[in-house]
């Protein structure tokens, strides 16, 4: 049976060229990059090359890149590090209700330490209103942290508008760009952000490595104390193979973006969106129709539950994801879907298909052939069928 991977927002396959680049940094070039000898110096040089590649991908200076263990650490570092270093100035942080848990839970932790956090609501597309954001700023506000694009519904937030506000009001601005780096062109200077989090394995790099872009001059504390690595900003011996891999992944991503990769993927996305909307009744597209990640498709199918859809898709060889309670590991469906105003029963029927570079038009056609049958089969089991008030009637 053919297997089709449509869960690229969860993780991607490490590119074989990345793996090849990493290989020699295990047993051949294994020196500690902080050592004076030649073993150490050859890995030091390789790390600095990787840093240049990652910096180049987002239009930053190499000195503004700190390697971390992943996107989660980068988020934690930016939020807690800025909060701790600037608390004399104020203890208020602004974020949104649809952030990744790495951001939300960092904020919750700071609340326990006496910080005040505003969790901005979003509209039905998942968009933040910059004007509403500005209204919540007060003289205690030290940090705004907003995701570049949402991992579940794919909505791309108005980062430039927010950064103009942040700059005008003299507040640090961090973005979680885990879903966008390597997938859409990003220039940090154009976006006007002070900090940006990214993760290697979301763009065909290895797992266990990420980076924080930290604009020169940002006042921040380290998250991990120890040796003087990363210019005293992140202690611990560098994850050399991981960093080399992330550097190569960044280089490859830049090449793909130059060749218009995101347009090719967006064509498949739009074909899926159009095809599902035409073939299945009582469906609801989640996220913004155009301000959207090139690889993100997210629908709610009324009268059916997400895990059942996933299991059926898996039996057909298709790997996807859902925001239903069963897949969120709690009894609640996805907080992102609830934040865009979906009722619980409809949020339980969500399906996310996230496309990547290996996907083909043929695979899209296969999904469009199989998925409507699965929904039909599950609806035949459902006690709701036609007698459920649709979203339109709300």
């Amino acid at each position, binding site marked *: 049976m053919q297997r089709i991977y449509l869960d690229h927002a969860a993780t991607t396959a490490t590119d074989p060229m990345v793996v090849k680049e990493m290989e020699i940094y295990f047993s051949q070039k294994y020196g500690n990059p902080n050592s004076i000898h030649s073993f150490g110096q050859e890995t030091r040089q390789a790390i600095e090359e990787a840093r240049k590649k990652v910096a180049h991908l987002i239009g930053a200076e190499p000195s503004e890149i700190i390697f971390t263990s992943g996107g989660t650490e980068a988020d934690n570092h930016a939020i807690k590090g800025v909060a701790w270093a600037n608390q004399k100035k104020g203890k208020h942080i602004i974020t949104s209700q649809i952030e990744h848990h790495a951001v939300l839970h960092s904020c919750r932790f700071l609340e326990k330490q006496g910080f005040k956090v505003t969790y901005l609501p979003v509209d039905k597309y998942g968009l933040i209103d910059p004007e509403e954001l500005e209204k919540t700023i007060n003289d205690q506000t030290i940090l705004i942290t907003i995701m570049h694009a949402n991992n579940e519904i794919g909505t791309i937030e108005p980062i430039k508008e927010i950064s103009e506000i942040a700059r005008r009001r003299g507040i640090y601005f961090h973005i979680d760009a885990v879903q966008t780096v390597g997938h859409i062109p990003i220039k940090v200077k154009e976006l006007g952000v002070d900090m940006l989090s990214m993760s290697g394995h979301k763009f065909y790099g290895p797992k266990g490595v990420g980076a924080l872009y930290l604009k020169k001059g940002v006042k921040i504390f380290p998250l991990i104390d120890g040796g003087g690595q990363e210019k005293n900003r992140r202690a611990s011996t560098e994850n050399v193979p991981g960093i080399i891999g992330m550097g190569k992944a960044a280089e490859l991503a830049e090449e793909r973006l130059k060749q218009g990769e995101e347009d090719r993927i967006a064509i498949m996305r739009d074909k899926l969106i159009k095809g599902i909307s035409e073939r299945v009744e009582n469906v609801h597209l989640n996220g913004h129709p155009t301000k959207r990640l090139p690889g993100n498709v997210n629908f709610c199918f009324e009268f059916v539950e*997400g*895990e*059942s859809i996933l*299991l059926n898709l898996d039996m057909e060889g298709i790997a996807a994801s859902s925001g239903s309670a*069963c897949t969120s590991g709690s009894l609640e469906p996805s907080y992102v879907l609830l934040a865009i105003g979906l009722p*619980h029963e409809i949020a*339980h029927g969500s399906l996310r298909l996230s496309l990547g570079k290996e996907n083909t038009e043929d695979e899209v056609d296969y999904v469009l052939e199989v998925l409507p049958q699965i929904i039909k089969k599950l609806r*035949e*089991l459902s006690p709701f069928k036609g007698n459920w008030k649709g979203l339109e009637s709300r």
Partner: protein
Amino acid sequence: MTLYSEKVMEHFRNPHNVGKIEEADGVGEVGNPVCGDIMKIYIKVKDGIIDDCKFETFGCGAAIATSSMVTEMVKGKTIEEALKITNQAVAEALGGLPPIKMHCSNLAADGLLKAIEDYQQKTGKIKKESKKKKERK
């Protein structure tokens, strides 16, 4: 996928006794669409024996498999025997369920109990003690 046992997947793939029974003798509904699981169990009773049983379920793999399993377990049983079927017994017949599913999606026997109560109420044979007996856990 190893989330569920092979038996669960068998019932999930090909659920038995799907649908409504028109003019059912008893109908039971459990769960809540807000929680993502709702089951409707229909029974047909003949001479004190459950002659037919069908279900309609909105829910996850466990919800669908337990619904299918309970309809299989109950067919041909007397009302008294049917009342002894527990959620636990349904899960066991399926080779077990993941721990998180034991509470949220393992409701099929409760649905059957409600269907039997509905039948007993309709026929004036309601037995209060049987309800108490079934309040388990």
